[in-house]
């Protein structure tokens, strides 16, 4: 929508006061009023641009509005610092993975027993009809085995079942994705050592 301040600025009488005429001082007041109204509109429009415009030097929240046809160059995604998780001596260690924080999450698994169970549950998927994917990188600290399970309805592709293991010498990277707010989550194992 174009600027509308000229609706008021066009009312300024630029021929006032007239030369050689006894001018009514109301003309000054009318002009000052038009000037003030035009400034008010300009201020509102600039304020809207300031609050609604994207700024190159700040975090911008697009609130799930579409960016159409950009070409991305030198673009990256937020990766979360490595989190250390310890297994329990009995039972399962549950961890929430918040998609809204980052799309790459790293975990060091501290195994305290011979068999260690961890369940990861991704939360805050972007909503239905929005495709999102994230990666989970996991490694262990010792020679015990970590058994990884994903919460909700998570289906891994290929020969991997929903439960995989991470041994002490390697790193496993999972890629998970969903297009229905996490109701169904698909995944694949990108690397397993």
């Amino acid at each position: 929508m174009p600027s509308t301040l000229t609706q008021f600025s066009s009312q300024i009488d630029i021929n006032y006061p007239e030369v050689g005429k006894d001018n009514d001082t109301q003309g000054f007041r009318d002009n000052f009023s038009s000037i003030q109204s035009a400034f008010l509109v300009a201020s509102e429009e600039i304020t809207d641009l300031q609050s609604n415009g994207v700024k190159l030097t700040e975090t911008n929240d697009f609130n799930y509005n579409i960016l159409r046809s950009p070409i991305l160059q030198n673009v990256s995604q937020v990766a979360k610092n490595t989190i250390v998780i310890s297994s329990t001596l009995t039972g399962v260690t549950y961890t929430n993975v918040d998609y809204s924080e980052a799309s790459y999450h790293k975990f060091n698994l501290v195994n305290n027993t011979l068999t260690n169970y961890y369940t990861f549950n991704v939360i805050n998927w972007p909503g239905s009809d929005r495709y999102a994917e994230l990666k989970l990188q996991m490694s262990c600290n010792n020679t015990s085995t970590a058994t990884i399970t994903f919460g909700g309805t998570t289906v891994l592709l290929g020969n991997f079942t929903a439960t995989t293991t991470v041994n002490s010498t390697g790193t496993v990277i999972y890629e998970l994705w969903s297009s229905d707010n996490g109701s169904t989550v698909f995944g694949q194992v990108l690397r397993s050592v």
Partner: protein
Amino acid sequence: MASTVTEITNQIDVNFPVFGQALSSVQEFQQNFQKIQKGFESLSKEITILQKNAVKLQDINDFGYNVVNKAVLQNHSYSVNTLGLIGNGVIDLDYSLGYYHTCSVNSGYYTFNVTNWPIGNAYSKIRLAVENASTSTTATCYINFSGNISYLNTQTNKITLGTESYSFWDLWSTDNGDSIFIKKLGSTLSTSTISIPGGGGGPSGTPPLITSVYPASASIYEPHAIYVSGTNMTGTNLRVYFNDIQITASFGEVSASSIIFIVSSVNLGPNIVKITTENGESTNIDVTGFDSSGGP
């Protein structure tokens, strides 16, 4: 580019009228009001340009293939193109509609054709999810992709999807779709054998090859005989497409390694013929204008 409003507003005489001095003319008042008005006109134009071209947090923004440099994405997502249940034949996947394309299938033959790849030297990728929506029967499908395709591994195009299971592919291009790379990610059915034809054919046979085309006479409107070689070309897996529409062709000699069939609806053109079998598809051949001494 900085605002130029002040080039005008700086001309406003802010010392007029002078205190204690009799006014010799009212001209200065008029000139100041004129400059104020011109300043507002310039301001209005600049605001309008910003309103039209600036990226806004609350609207859809079309970047027109301009570069966004050094952004760090957080909590981002991509558009989804939901095709629903699709029928046999050629299915367009419109890149501009989404990054993630989903469809449901029954048993049959499907050729996916990606359209509207971004222009210029841009790496562009989509992910395709094919689902057997049936809750009671498996689906045996033949999945092909049209275009100049390079597969990351040699595969055949036959897939078997269990009830409510999915298969996924990644497709990408860097040259507006002139060349397309495809990687099969896998299936949620752990025991399925998922495969796609490679350029030289999969391990189970040779894709069909149109070797000769002969019109019945010199007239382009007469039926054309199409000679095809390949393997595994008998049975129900054979499909003939005329201008991308599957037709019921009249077959002459048919063996496992060669076919002769007749296309009778040749006209001024184009007249694009394509053959598909379980081992892949032939290249498109325009049979318009061939004479009995020539061939593809």
